[in-house]
């Protein structure tokens, strides 16, 4: 097991290098130019050229890339072109909101979705199943921002229960922190509740039709026991996969949620950086994402062996 973890981490480093190279070259050939954005509407072409040179953007791609990798190896993520702030500082500022939003959303989704999925599978074909599935499907057939606007309108503007936007750090108290995150978490959760509930139901049905479940049932074990001990445990592999996938999806969904609720998170940082071509920030964030992704998937793969001993590494 430890050997496996070690191997995973070792094989992962080249992946991250490849990703970095890929993304970096991708945006290098992209037509945007940060110098033009900095210079503003008023600037002349000459001024833009000057700014470009002073930012080092006129150097060849390879030189810039090697320079970047060299710095990374020294623990330096570089400095944002626009703000002149260290990229590590900008990322650090924004990790907490995104992480909090994701953890809360994930918790919420799992707590709501798995019982929904199990229930739907147990009552397959009945109206309970249909209602749950239609609800689940509605959850992810509505665009995130529409859900966000409607929730904000009802719970913040009309009922005045929760704030419309913004973020309060956990250090300023748990309740203010939670208050600001409830609506975004439900907004973002819609899709994942739907996704996890569907996959749970699908996997449960698969397992429920297996012979050993029938056997267990025939042996006279209670239906609830069968459902939660045998079936759910065996359905856990695909469910875990989806939750694992969900983490990467969550970051993407967070982009929109963070915009709607004005949360200063990583998603917005990344989109802003892409649209402005703030290369050092894009690179830093992408590096972070691949790291997080590798970590989450390692955990998910390890969970496979827990849930399904037939899978060996």
């Amino acid at each position, binding site marked *: 097991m430890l050997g496996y973890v070690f191997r995973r981490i070792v094989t992962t480093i080249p992946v991250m290098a490849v990703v970095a190279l890929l993304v970096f070259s991708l945006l290098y050939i992209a037509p945007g130019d940060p110098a033009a954005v*900095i210079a*503003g*509407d008023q600037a002349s*072409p000459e001024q833009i050229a000057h700014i470009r040179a002073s930012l080092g953007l006129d150097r060849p791609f390879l030189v810039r890339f090697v320079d970047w990798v060299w710095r990374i190896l020294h623990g330096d993520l570089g400095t944002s072109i626009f703000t002149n702030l260290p990229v590590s500082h900008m990322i650090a500022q924004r990790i907490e909101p995104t992480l909090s939003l994701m953890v809360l959303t994930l918790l919420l989704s799992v707590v709501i979705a798995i019982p929904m999925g199990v229930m739907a599978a147990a009552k397959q074909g009945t109206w309970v199943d249909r209602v749950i599935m239609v609800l689940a499907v509605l959850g992810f057939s509505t665009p995130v921002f529409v859900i966000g606007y409607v929730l*904000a309108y009802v719970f*913040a503007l009309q009922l005045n229960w929760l704030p419309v936007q913004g973020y309060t750090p956990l250090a300023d108290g748990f309740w203010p922190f939670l208050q600001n995150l409830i609506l975004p978490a439900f907004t973002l959760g819609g899709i994942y509740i739907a996704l996890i509930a569907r996959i749970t139901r699908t996997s449960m049905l698969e397992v429920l039709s297996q012979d050993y479940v029938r056997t267990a049932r025939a042996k006279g074990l209670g239906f609830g026991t069968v459902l939660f001990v045998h079936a759910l445990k065996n359905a856990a592999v695909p469910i875990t996969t989806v939750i694992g996938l969900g983490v990467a999806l969550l970051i993407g969904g967070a982009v929109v949620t963070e915009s709607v609720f*004005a949360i200063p998170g990583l998603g917005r940082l990344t989109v802003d950086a892409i649209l402005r071509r703030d290369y050092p920030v894009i690179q830093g964030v992408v590096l972070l994402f691949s790291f997080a992704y590798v970590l989450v998937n390692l955990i998910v793969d390890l969970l496979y062996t827990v849930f399904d001993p037939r899978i060996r590494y």
Partner: protein
Amino acid sequence: MGMNRRDFLTLAAGAGAIATLPAPAIAKESETRVLRFVPQANLPNLDPVWGTQYVVRNASLLVYDTLFGLSSNLEPKPQMCASYETSADGRVWTFRLRDGLYFHDKEPVRSVDVVASLKRWMARDAMGQVLKDRLDTLEVVNDKQFRVQLQKPFPKLLLALAKPMPNIAVVMPERIANSDPFKQVAEYIGSGPMRFRRDEWVPGSRAVFERFSDYVPREETGDWLAGGKRMELDRIEWQVIPDAATAAAALQSGEVDWWETPIADLVPLLRANGKLRVEIADNLGNVGILRFNHLYPPFNDVRVRRAVAMVVSQDDYMHAVVGSDDALWRPMPSIFTPGTPLYTEAGGEILKGPRHWEEAKKLLAEAGYNGEKIVMLVATDIGITKGQSDVTADLLKRLGMNVDYVATDWGTVGARRAKQDPPSAGGWHIFHTWLAGLDCTTPATNIALRANGRKAWFGWPSSELIQTLIGQWYDAPDLAAERWVAADLNKAAMDFLPYIPTGFFLAYQAWRNNVSGIVKAPFPVFWGVRKQ
């Protein structure tokens, strides 16, 4: 919320140490007056010489001070400057700084700081460059005085020093101002009424300004950038809310106090809320711009530009930009901002009255347009440019032109419009933007007017007549002379069409009822604003 107690005490102690200063009004922490402001855009940096976005300018006006300041009647008035003398031939100017000026690092402001700052600014600003060309020496006389010696008189010197149109001549400490004008400064230290809390800055989300207790405002009442900039607030928090619907909701629920740029269509909704006030932000408004690339066919041919101008309906453009409220816009067959001293419609007939479709089509055919693709760059993430582009696409289509609508983001438009390559090889034909009305009050600050070919603003028009006339304005001794030049200039511009003004439009600002003292200006004026 509220000011960090320890920081506040340090500040207060520092202020007390400087005995000559009036004792600062020490507010208790619980009484900290905080204003929450939603700016037009994210604040990306705080170097108004290096970056020229309006939002950078607006924040800079809080943090930095200028020698002169523009008043609401567009006149330069002394700000950091206590007095000045001019020689009879107008070639030697001696300025004296007023007493009690301190930078946020507690160092006094000296002439050596001013001279270094002006040098950095002259390297970047268009009017600054004209000054530089006429400059003989710029020298420190003593700690309080400095002297400008010119080879040729420069009647617009005070305007150049006062103008809030980017790039602005802000004063920074010498050690910072001595840096490369094409590199962003490493520290944001000014001598303005508020200091920037860099430690609380979250780019893309939040910028915090804290009252600088050592700031001594002028005696006069504040009027835009002139007079006393008296802060009635201890802390100003800029909250960037990119989504207009969210910003509107935040203002309605009282989570923010002042929204700089509410969308016109949301105004009825905000007005219906009894706790809000919505007013015109700035009578100088904005000017929509349809910009041609003058280097390549078909728009290198003035007949094609005229054909488009003949059918342009400023009505349609302005509806697309400001919505249904007709009080918000005005047609402007002019390059100057309506309602300002130089405004003239001389030669503007081409943009007025009934539109001449048949004539335009004939002119187009005569110019030999044969269906080639017109590459139009459209920043779909910026409402005002997108709205104008949609109207132009429709217009050119009806004129029989073949439009290639390149939908992309502002970052890409910004880069691509700088390319002088042919439109088929990565260049372009048309893009849209807008200028602040303030910028179009003089020929020097209207960037789109400059017609010095490949050195001009994107689009690179080339017209000696326009260049000569702009030069004449610089030397015009009084307003009458300026107006004379302005009429000729407008005629020349409406004939040559370096760009087409798509109309003059006003914008709103909205704030909560418990905030008072907000004035109409082309930039948010925070001094004099109170919050209960």
